């Protein structure tokens, strides 16, 4: 029986029948400003705070200081406590390099007991790889390697389009175990955040799109409403 890894995000775990399947890799994708970083960090923060699982956030774009500063502006989380006690680690890879990234992942997972990992974002990995073939080969190798280690991985990726109808699919969406898409949709005269689970292998997940808000406690999904 495969275990579940709850995100602890209100309303979301019900969509995926209790959480992500453990040791799987999930792609979290969406347009700019749709809450990917908040969702990803909330997955780790709840992991550390509620489920006592160590988390590692690898930020390939923002420095850890800037990432933390931005999160602290809008969220009432005690991130410092978990960073201090080592249950939450934020790391970066200067001048992205697949070996550097893999070294850090391998060390934290095998030597420090990290159980939840976020890699943010995939775009940087693609931009810093010589060609598409090498990117695909390295990504498949990385995901296969991570599958052998005892951790659940969330990778963020930027979507170029922001409407459900116009979503284009890329290789990574086919090779990962799950895909969660975040939107910021124009509805009447305003924009509303929404999300859907596009794919989650092994889970009879919800197929609907639900609205969510980003509050000072983090993302809250409203599964009683459907968009």
């Amino acid at each position: 029986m495969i275990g579940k890894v709850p995100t602890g995000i209100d309303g979301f775990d019900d969509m995926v029948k209790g959480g992500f399947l453990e040791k799987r890799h999930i792609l979290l994708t969406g347009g700019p400003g749709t809450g990917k970083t908040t969702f990803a960090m909330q997955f780790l923060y709840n992991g550390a705070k509620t489920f006592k699982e160590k988390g590692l956030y690898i930020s390939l774009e923002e420095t850890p200081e800037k990432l933390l500063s931005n999160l602290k502006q809008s969220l009432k989380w005690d991130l410092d406590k978990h960073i201090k006690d080592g249950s939450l680690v934020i790391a970066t890879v200067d001048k992205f390099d697949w070996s550097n990234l893999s070294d850090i992942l391998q060390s934290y997972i095998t030597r420090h007991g990290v159980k939840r990992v976020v890699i943010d974002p995939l775009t940087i990995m693609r931009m810093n790889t010589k060609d598409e073939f090498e990117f695909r080969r390295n990504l498949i190798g990385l995901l296969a390697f991570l599958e052998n280690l005892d951790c659940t991985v969330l990778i963020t990726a930027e979507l170029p389009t922001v409407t459900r109808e116009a979503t284009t699919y890329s290789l990574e969406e086919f090779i990962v175990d799950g895909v969660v898409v975040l939107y910021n949709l124009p509805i009447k005269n305003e924009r509303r955040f929404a999300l859907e689970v596009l794919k989650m292998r092994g889970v009879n997940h919800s197929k609907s799109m639900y609205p969510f808000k980003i509050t000072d406690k983090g993302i809250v999904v409203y599964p009683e409403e459907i968009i």
Partner: protein
Amino acid sequence: MDTLAYTYDIGKPLNIKKLAGLKYAELPQGTEVLKAQFGEVTILVFPSGEMRAFSKGKTFEDLERGLMPASVRIIQLLEDIKKSGVKLDPTKVIESGKRIQWSSAAPAGVRKTMESTVGLDILRQMTYAPLDIMSEFQVERMLVQAGENIGRSLADGSLKSADKLSEAIVAYLKANKLCVSSFKKRKDPSKNSSYDQFVFTMSESAFAAGIPPVGKPMCHFIRGLIRGAFAKFLELENVSVKETQCWGLGDTECEFVMTVLPK
């Protein structure tokens, strides 16, 4: 089929020869390890009081649920050891059982008559033969892990500076005939880090000297060793070691640059 291996610690030294009379155990010639075989379950008992149980083809969950014949066999063996006069509590020994961490389960000091070095051709085969059946990614990860394990053991707390650590790395590589090396320290040119960079230059790499240029560096074990040593010494994981020159890149020397990444 996987072979599952568990280790149990009796916690006191044993006179293995005295136990050799157990009806289902044998003392292999020339060693001080007692071997008990129960069908597909093998139990080795060491004079130190450690026991290892090996079993093929069962799942980890089976072992944990205690349904495995291994658990029953171990209790049986422990009861007999107790009858031979050794005072122990079989329940406590079983409770202490844990899955073997292979990377720390193979101390080299067990061999008493053989030299500690192995041939270069064996090392090269172990490094490169896996590439014929596994992905390059996996092989690199495996070699980095092995190198890091060694590197971390070098940073044992007795070394007081990064220079001394670097000297210890150079000495280890030479003593184990892995390469001839030297190091120098410099300021991080990017000025992103308050730590110095350490640059190791190596010739006659056991892993790569003489290999054809394949467009990528190949001394993953040594790269992992340097990284592990500095990560342990500095108590930081944001340590980057890049192999900037290698036979695999078409050079005739290897160079490794250790940088501490900004946090």
